[in-house]
């Protein structure tokens, strides 16, 4: 019943790969989402009863999902390339007139890799959380929210139409809201959570409008039908759709101008930062853009916009990351910048899509690694996050240090660590497309080298600047083992995906691929890149080898600006928040005084009129008589004057 719809599609869209019916092992696609959802339901509705075993259930569901995902991958690889897109319609969801949206899942090469990233990294972080959240009274709820997040994220990447994607999109937003504000009694946390949700909401406006425009244009919101017809739509429409989707992506992926929430989001527990605000959710924007590649292919304008946004954010993030002393915020800045890379890559079009995803995957691994490492440090330094109070930790936290180094080398892109392959591919693509963009990416790589080195030195090298009460110690195995796995991941993912996994040809059917000649030979380019990175590293070493003051020095203008996250909050306040409050107070005034005032006023007027008119009733019989005489005169007058034809 699912297949036949798809066959028609295949004819309608020759360029597109057909959806094949979900049979055999794929018949249970929905289990993938159902598992963590079930976990979430049990943990959140179960109440205190589940306190004891709840967390383990949470871990279990995700791990099962991960195992199933691997099975799916294997059987997917077992299939011929043109049958690797599986569609499964579960039931009719929203249907009115011509608008009909099913709850239907679609597993193709693109969603497959996401499913893997989400479930595997997800389960590792779940395990890690067992240790990290051990003493938190609300562990149960924490794991419940995590499960909820995994479920929504899977829905997001498995949905086969935009509206269903929206549900997952908002679901992860909700989970992120709940987890950022997990320590709700901290006003800062609550505020950060609200900020994140509302800024995402702005992006959602883009997504909803995009969906409406898509429907009005194509008469459907199902991916394959839309993409099949994308070629026939006129360019301006596509441009609008592209820009609106970009707006959505900016919200979710903390891209300029909607980036301000990400740094505050670090208020959440570190595993959350690792999973949601580094590895998976924040990359959803990239997924959206890559997924919609047939639309972007039709509009150079939107693509350019995507690139510009990517470049801006890439630098902003890098600069912010270079100045923050809070280790998590520094990492958050780097996340922004790395996602900037991906968005930029996606903006390059068919040349870049694949590499955007590629970098997304490697980043997912090594950034999770770095965050969990940071978490381990924070845990060891009993919740001190200021890097200026760290130093020389390599001596006491060996595993953390080593794994962190793997992530470090990966992110700055030293061969053969994973980041090297993905980032260099992006830089290549950038140069193939446009020299300027290429140079930007290269510079950003250099800055990356700088801020990551700074972070490593301030944290693990130099003298110890610990607070007196701090007794840093290595974390428990339950935390270190995931670290180790991810550390290995940071080393191998890149090569594995590129050479063994052959990611380019794997994704090609979804994203298409395109090669252009490089202006300069690849090897030289790589050399230069590496050189730039090393320069960045060198500067950092030079700057921080010697004593790091516990109190941050004044620093030059740029540093100060960067410490204040480039004043994004100030700007938002001035441009959006303040005006909203003014507007709101204004309307309240209007409502109380003017609108309700008019109502009350008219009532009072009638009352007043009454008490004035009753004075006519003077109580003197003769004045009544006078009134009568006057009345009689009036009557005569009326009879003479007012007379119907």
């Amino acid at each position, binding site marked *: 019943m699912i297949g036949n719809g*798809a066959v028609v599609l295949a004819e309608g869209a020759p360029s597109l790969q057909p959806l094949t019916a979900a049979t055999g092992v794929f018949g249970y696609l929905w289990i993938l989402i159902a598992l963590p959802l079930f976990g979430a339901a049990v943990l959140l509705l179960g109440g205190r009863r589940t306190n004891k075993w709840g967390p383990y259930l949470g871990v279990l569901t995700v791990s099962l999902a991960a195992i199933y995902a691997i099975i799916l991958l294997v059987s997917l690889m077992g299939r011929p390339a043109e049958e690797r897109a599986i569609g499964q319609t579960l039931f009719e969801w929203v249907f009115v007139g011509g608008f*009909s949206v099913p709850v239907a899942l679609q597993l193709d090469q693109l969603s497959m890799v996401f499913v893997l990233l989400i479930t595997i990294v997800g389960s590792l972080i779940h395990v890690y959380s067992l240790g990290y959240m051990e003493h938190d009274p609300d562990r149960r709820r924490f794991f419940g929210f995590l499960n909820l997040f995994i479920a929504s994220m899977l829905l997001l990447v498995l949905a086969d*139409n935009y509206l269903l994607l929206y549900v997952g999109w908002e679901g992860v937003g*909700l989970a992120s809201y709940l987890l950022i504000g997990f320590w*709700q009694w901290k006003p800062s946390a609550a505020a950060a959570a609200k900020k994140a949700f509302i800024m995402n909401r702005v992006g959602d406006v883009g997504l*909803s409008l995009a969906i409406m425009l898509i429907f009005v244009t194509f008469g459907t919101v199902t991916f394959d039908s839309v993409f099949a017809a994308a070629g026939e739509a006129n360019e301006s429409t596509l441009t609008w759709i592209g820009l609106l989707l970009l707006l959505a992506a900016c919200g979710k992926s903390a891209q300029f101008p909607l980036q301000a929430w990400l740094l505050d989001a670090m208020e959440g527990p570190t595993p959350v930062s690792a999973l949601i605000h580094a590895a998976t959710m924040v990359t959803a924007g990239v997924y959206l853009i890559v997924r919609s590649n047939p639309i972007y292919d039709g509009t150079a304008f939107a693509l350019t916009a995507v690139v510009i946004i990517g470049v801006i954010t890439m630098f902003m993030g890098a600069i912010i990351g270079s100045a923050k002393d809070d280790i998590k915020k520094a990492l958050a800045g780097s996340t922004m910048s790395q996602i900037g890379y991906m968005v930029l890559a996606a903006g390059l079009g068919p040349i870049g899509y694949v590499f955007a995803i590629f970098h997304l995957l490697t980043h997912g691994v090594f950034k999770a690694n770095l965050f969990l490492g940071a978490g381990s440090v924070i845990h060891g330094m009993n919740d001190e996050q200021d890097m200026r109070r760290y130093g020389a930790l390599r001596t006491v936290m060996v595993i953390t240090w080593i794994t962190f180094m793997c992530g470090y080398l990966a992110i700055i892109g030293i061969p053969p660590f994973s980041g090297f392959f993905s980032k260099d591919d992006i830089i290549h693509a950038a140069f193939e497309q446009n020299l300027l963009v290429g140079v930007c990416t290269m510079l950003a790589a250099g800055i990356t080298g700088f801020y990551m080195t700074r972070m490593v030195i301030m944290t693990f090298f130099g003298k110890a600047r610990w607070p007196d009460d701090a007794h840093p110690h290595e974390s428990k195995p339950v935390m270190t083992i995931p670290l180790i796995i991810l550390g290995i991941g940071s080393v191998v993912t890149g090569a594995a995906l590129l050479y063994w996994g052959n990611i380019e040809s794997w994704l090609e059917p979804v994203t298409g691929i395109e090669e252009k000649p490089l202006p300069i030979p690849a090897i030289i380019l790589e050399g230069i890149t590496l050189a730039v990175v090393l320069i960045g590293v060198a500067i950092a070493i030079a700057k921080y080898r010697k004593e790091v003051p516990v109190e941050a020095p004044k620093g030059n203008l740029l540093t100060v600006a960067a410490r204040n996250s480039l004043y994004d909050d100030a700007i938002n306040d001035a441009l959006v928040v303040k005006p*909203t409050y003014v507007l*709101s107070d204004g309307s309240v005034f209007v409502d109380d005084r003017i609108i309700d005032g008019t109502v009350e006023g008219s009532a009072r007027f009638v009352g007043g009129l009454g008490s004035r008119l009753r004075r006519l009733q003077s109580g003197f019989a003769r004045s009544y008589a006078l009134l009568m005489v006057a009345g009689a005169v009036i009557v005569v007058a009326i009879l003479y004057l007012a007379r119907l034809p």
Partner: protein
Amino acid sequence: MTSLPWLTILMVVPLVGSIIVMLLPRDRDVLPKQVALGFALLTLVLTVVMGLQFDADATAPFQFVESYPWIPALGISFSVGVDGIGLVLVALAATLVPVVILAGWNDVMPGSGRSVKGYFALILILQTLMIGVFAATDVFLFYVFFEVMLIPIYFLIGRYGGADRSYAAVKFLIYSLVGGLLMLAALIGLYVVSVQQLGQGTFDFAALVGLDIDPNTQKILFVGFFIAFAIKAPLWPFHTWLPDAAKESTPATAVLLIGVLDKVGTFGMIRYLLPIFPAASEFYAPLVVALAVIGILYGALVAFGQKDMKRLFAYSSMSHFGFIALGIFVFTTWGLSGSTFYMIAHGLSTAAIFLAAGFLMNRAGGSSLISTYGGVNKVAPVLAGFFLFAALSALALPGLASFIGEFLVLLGTFAVNVPVAVIATLGIVITAGYALKLYQKVATGPPSPAVEGMSDLRGREITTLAPIVFLTILLGVFPAPVLNVINPAVERTLEVVGVTDPPSVIPPIVQGSAP
């Protein structure tokens, strides 16, 4: 079809219930509640049974039709029957009444000088009238229910409400009367037209739809009906009674008032304005759309600035009613179905927010000032959880019922008028703003003095909220039961108006990948 007079039964059962409650001895203060709850549940069961017999794809516009002559001299008959839209609204009423009875269990303390049984009797009478107003197929009968409904609510507010109750009650009643009397005038005008056209007058809905009223007359009569509905709904700027009424009434009353009664306004627009005055509807559509959009943003902004919870809910409802009205007057199946669906969803989310807030306020001595509260989440996580859920359902989180309504409305608007749709869509940001701001102030941060040592929800309270939450999620994930029922009615309505949905720019290859 069944031969049983279902709708009459549905109306009679609560009526009987209220009479029995009134006849109970004064000194029993629990018995009336139990009896009332029993009858409410019985009504619910009957409604479900009836609903199961509803034939979604029947050709007849109305089902469970009954008609008895009432005042033949004036062509008035007691005729009832439901189409899909009426059915779901009747169901909404039948669902919410038992919930509020359970929620209002201790609203009236014995010895407070107010009669316990009176409270529940009034609620049951109200249920009869609510079912009647949605089921009437004789315009006069509709009007009678429409007006008489005011009286129980008037007493519920004025007798059992808060400090300023009698002011709020009178304001509510006068406002409604203004609308009601204008509507009466228009109704009579309609009757006179029917006399002129059919020889002898009638109020039968079908017959009136059949009339061919000249546009200018339509424009006059339309105004009479519209203002009545706009006040009920309420649309900007006819709304200022709502905040006071909402603030002064008990949560239970507020739920019935905003959750169900106010739907009569939008229901009336769909059922009466569009089919009977098609020309006028199209003539005034731009105006109404403008009012609706203003209402959406204005309501949200005012809600954002409120210091009082209940008033905030009132304004947020006003903004949601803006969405509903918008969907009605863009004349697309998406918009109209969306509005209808939104009515149900809004009924549920109103119930959720008011009841949750009510339970919160009961624990803090009834203050509805937001500033009284803080950090509830720490002391009463379950309560805070429900509160958050209500807030999310108010901001139409995808996956919840309200999202489907809101999105369909916006989609239907976008299809015919992009700028309006864009402006309206901005509303969802402000909505998120006030909803989460409220939650942040009430539930997060360190617990405030009023909140310290607050007890969490008890069994009865959870029992009242659970079904609402369940329905909200269910309809958000699987709206088919409702959509199946309302879509035919919606399409029929638009046929009468004589408009069809604009086709997509590019003819779709297949309708999604649906089976």
